[in-house]
């Protein structure tokens, strides 16, 4: 009886033409979520990092090499965000499909980036030459990226091209409607001052019209020092700062210290999909980020 069901299912599989989902390697959870929106069941996504991890520094570990080995499509941020580990993975995995660069999709290459540095010098910290890569918190840019992702998927997985385009056509108006809703929701956040730890909330602040008046890191990528924190405290006390805002993966200690000393609330935002319970899709990410920012009553 068991053999019969095995033969039957094998037969069914052969008969169906073996509907094979495109194997995708997503560097970060935000792209995994976008792939779900645009690709649905036509893609099988492996997400390499979680919302609890700082993606600037990830070990090029064996499990990631194995996944890179068998993938058919890679979606990452680019702009050197993953420069410390992604090249090592593609090199070691020896995946021939990926030699076709259409199969490597870098989100940051699809949009104009903020804060392109005039000078590249490590004395200024860990600067990204192409600009600030943390684009997933700007809904306008995310819409453009989604469109380009649908186009690229259609190119690489031609039999399902119409499906990907259709999914984008269904996603876009929902997203645009959500954008209007988020702007309305966050209207009274406009003009407020916040202190962050790193440049990673830049695009969210820009889109919501919030001012980042100081950063806990003395230079990008370097841990906060006592001297610098004293300066930030002085800034916090010299003007009205609405909140200290950090990402879920960031060490909260310095933020907690400043929050206590300056008597301003500390808010931990998801930063990417999976960073909080409610941020389980791209929509949830923005919903929860704005809800958490608004929760601060001071």
């Amino acid at each position, binding site marked *: 009886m068991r053999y019969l069901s095995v033969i039957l299912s094998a037969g069914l599989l052969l008969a169906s033409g073996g509907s094979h989902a495109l194997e995708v390697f997503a560097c970060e959870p935000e792209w995994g979520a976008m792939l779900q929106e645009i690709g649905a069941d036509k893609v099988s996504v492996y997400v390499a*990092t*979680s919302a*609890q*991890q*700082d993606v*600037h*520094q*990830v*070990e*090029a*570990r*064996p*499990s990631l*090499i*194995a996944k890179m*080995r*068998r993938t058919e499509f890679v979606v990452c941020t680019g702009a*050197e965000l993953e*420069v*410390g*580990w992604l*090249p*090592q993975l593609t*090199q*070691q*995995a*020896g*995946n*021939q*499909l990926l*030699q076709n660069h259409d199969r490597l999709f870098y989100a940051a*290459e*699809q*949009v*104009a*980036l903020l804060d392109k540095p005039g000078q590249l010098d*490590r004395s200024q*910290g*860990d600067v990204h030459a*192409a*600009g600030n890569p943390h684009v997933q918190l700007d809904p*306008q*840019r995310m*819409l*453009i990226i989604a469109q380009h992702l649908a186009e690229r998927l259609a190119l690489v997985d031609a039999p399902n091209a119409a499906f990907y385009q259709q999914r984008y056509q269904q996603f876009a108006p929902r997203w*645009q409607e959500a954008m209007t809703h988020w702007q309305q929701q966050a209207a009274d956040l406009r003009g407020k001052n916040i202190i962050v730890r790193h440049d990673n909330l830049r695009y969210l602040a820009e889109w919501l019209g919030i001012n980042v008046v100081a950063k806990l890191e003395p230079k990008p*990528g*370097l*841990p906060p020092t006592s001297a610098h924190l004293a300066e930030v405290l002085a800034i916090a006390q010299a003007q009205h700062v609405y909140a200290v805002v950090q990402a879920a*993966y*960031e*060490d909260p200690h310095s933020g907690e210290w400043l929050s206590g000393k300056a008597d301003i609330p500390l808010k931990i935002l998801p930063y990417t999909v999976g960073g909080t319970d409610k941020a389980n899709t791209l929509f949830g990410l923005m919903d929860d980020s704005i809800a958490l920012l608004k929760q601060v009553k001071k």
Partner: protein
Amino acid sequence: MRFSILAALLGALLPAVWASDSPDLEARVQQLEQQLSAVQNNQLAASPAATQASASSFNPAASLILSGTYAEHSGADDYSLAGFHVGSEGQPKSDGFALGESELTLSANVDDKFYGQFTISFSEENGETKSDIEESYIETSALADGLNLRFGHFLSGVGYLNSHHAHTDIFIDRPLVYGSFFNHHYGDDGVQLRYVLPLDKYLEVGAEFFRGDNYPAAGAANNGRGVDTQFIRFGDDIGIGGSYLLGLSRLHARADNAEETDSNNPALFTGDITITIVDATFKWSPQGNKKLGQFVVRSELFAEQRDGVLDDTQSGGFLADWSGKRNGYYVEGEYITSGGYEFGGRWDELHGDSKAPALFASDYVPQRISVMAGWRNSEFSRIQLQWSRTGMNESENYNSWLLQYQMSLGAHGAHKF
């Protein structure tokens, strides 16, 4: 310009919309809104300049590692290990201030099929600048899926530390097994084939053929194919924060007058050497977030089998059979805090062969304990202080204090696990 015209148009149109609710006007408003968002998108879309490569982007990625040490040794005058040869590269750092190796690495894609990497290290010895081509190789994965072919001069893929550049080591010096069995590292001219199996878990197999000029081989025996190796690696994650890598390797070398002592008339070994290495590395970070801290523990076990002849006649000694086994291992670990402070410890042990020729016969077990503390200001700079005590033989210990800086300039190096 278009933006302001459109805005003006909308502004002019809106009163008209309020005045009349004709569906025709509604459609026009919708059309204008779409055009407005299209203009906004154009502003946000990547400009061609953004993705254009700069003039120097086809030039190799270049990185330079600068390092230097300050050392204080005490105990015995000379460094030696009972039952083992300590190669020139395995000797302790010079007393006092010393410039370490300055290492330059250049790498780039040659074309769509080939990649090249070159590493040269410069050091000063007795007032003379010595340069050593550590690696100069071409690699391609154009043959078949998962298959990597490497050829040129490169570090062998056996063991763990061997294929890593020394500046990525946890400690300032290499473990005793490397200093004695490999003269710090084994690299040679040859070819390597590696295959990553298309499995759910990481499994890689590899094999190499080398010329056989460098220790433990010598003389480019067997018509310049004096060394062959085979290795297999497996690794996976444990939970959210842990990952491990296991390796099993075998190096088979033909030695044709390999120098086994440091004298002007060294003792020479001719014969076969087979070294089997088992290596294991485990890394863990809270939630897998390296920025919050990282714990690393590693061990390698070397088992050597020799079958040949030791010729010590040049210095007035004897010709003797040397067939037997020796082995050794190390265990090392470190913890790096979120603030970049690091602390580590290491234990080294070597087991000699009491039946080896007189020069190497020993049943003493050389051992060493090392502890280290350091600070990494960023991924690119590192300062560390290390203390070690070596039991060299039955009557002598060797103690060292080492202070080292290590700085990396240039391209962001790609680091293996």
